[in-house]
């Protein structure tokens, strides 16, 4: 903990968990989509479902989906801005068994028809955890830069990716693998120290059996 965790962050109110954290969850979904959003289906659980209008959680999530940061003053008007830009947004209250009380499920459709679904929780002080990406369980704190590598479950793919990271002189702080089934779709969630090097990400996405690689920076 440092002085800027105490005096800071600069954020749009009213609540670090219900507003700032919600922006971050939205932004993760947008980053994973890699393109402009044309439709967002947002499902809210627990305290998020109960209090989202009063806390502006809806505006915060949509702000994040539109690539805004937690201190972006446009968040207050994000629903109107989304409408202006022709982004279709819907909200639904749901119940997820054993989920954190501040949980959102976001399903995005991009302009080329691409889809991304994530489940994330705002766990206090603006910190978030992403629990699920496209149906695959992950556990991303987003405190550090992370690489989300979606790939085909084939022998040697993990070794190829991690040795490439190693060759780039980047240290891995955390690694988690999740897969649908043997030989099916799988995702590596790799937290790395420092190095927000975009070219690393581009090179990994070119490796064989890698479907996509996304770099999530701390926001």
């Amino acid at each position: 903990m440092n002085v800027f965790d105490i005096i800071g962050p600069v954020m749009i109110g009213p609540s670090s968990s219900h507003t700032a954290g919600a922006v971050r969850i939205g932004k993760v979904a947008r980053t994973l989509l890699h393109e402009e959003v044309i439709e967002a289906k947002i499902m809210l659980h627990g305290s998020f479902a109960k209090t989202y209008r009063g806390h502006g959680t809806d505006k915060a999530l949509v702000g994040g989906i539109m690539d805004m940061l937690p201190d972006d003053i446009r968040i207050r008007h994000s629903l109107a801005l989304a409408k202006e830009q022709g982004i279709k947004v819907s909200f639904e209250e749901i119940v997820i068994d054993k989920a954190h009380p501040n949980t959102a499920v976001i399903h995005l459709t991009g302009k080329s028809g691409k889809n991304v679904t994530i489940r994330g929780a705002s766990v206090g002080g603006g910190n978030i955890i992403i629990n699920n990406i496209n149906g695959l369980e992950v556990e991303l704190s987003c405190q550090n830069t992370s690489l989300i590598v979606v790939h085909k479950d084939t022998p040697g793919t993990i070794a190829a990716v991690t040795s490439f990271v190693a060759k780039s002189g980047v240290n891995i702080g955390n690694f988690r693998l999740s897969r649908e089934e043997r030989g099916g779709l799988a995702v590596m969630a790799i937290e790395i120290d420092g190095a927000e090097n975009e070219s690393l990400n581009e090179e990994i996405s070119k490796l064989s059996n890698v479907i996509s690689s996304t770099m999530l920076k701390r926001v």
Partner: protein
Amino acid sequence: MIKYDSVNELVTMAIALNKNISELVINQQAEELEKSTEELYETMHSSLQVMKQSVTEGLDPDLKSASGMSGGSAFKMKKYVDSGKSLCGNAFGMSIARALAVAELNSCMGRIVAAPTAGACGIIPAALLTMAEEKNIEEEKIVMSLFTASAIGIVIAHNASISGAEGGCQAECGSASAMAAAALVELAGGTPEMVAHACAIALKNILGLVCDPVAGLVEVPCNKRNAAGVANAFVAAEMVLAGIESAIPCDEVILAMKKVGDLMSYSLKETAEGGLAATPTAKRISQRIY
């Protein structure tokens, strides 16, 4: 090496090095974050600019939160102070107006600096900007005093809590008030020991305060408690500058706050199930909003 595990540590080291707590902290943080003191100063300076902007925006008479519960109080308060009728004068009246301005702006989805949290964001800006205006203090000293406030906040976060959900409002508005009192005393030329006494007195005065937000929103009673929090910071600072000491040392007060927080019922820790949130009027408001 500072561990931030006690206020006494900060006081002892500052005295040993013949420095203010703020100087001690900015140097240590520069080492820890591997950045220059100038960079850290600039980051804190930009937070102070956001605080000033929040006060200006929060004084808008037409400010209104989504629930309709907040907005416009800061404007009323300033108008009253400007009329010259304030019972306790300009400094006191304007510190209330500024605390309300920033807290209400937060309720209305404006841009604020969490200090230490969004719910208590009005207290520190109100204390420091009022002190700067009343005593003509240059901006550099105000920025530096934020390092002293932060250091106190880190110790409280380590040994107790700065979250209403964990420790009640004493942990949010209480911590902010203690941090503000510490900064005020340093700005007024108080010694590091006096900073610790001010922090102790401010916390003692808010000990036991519960977190009971109406409808679960950061509005009622939070915004007015920001006004009370800045008043309490001045009460503590004034007593200490007059030479009065806290009978209980600051670190023991912080630990007492932790124990009180642990004893506090779950219904009084940001769940909107007890206290003011459970009153008939609060329930009616809640039904209207949801």
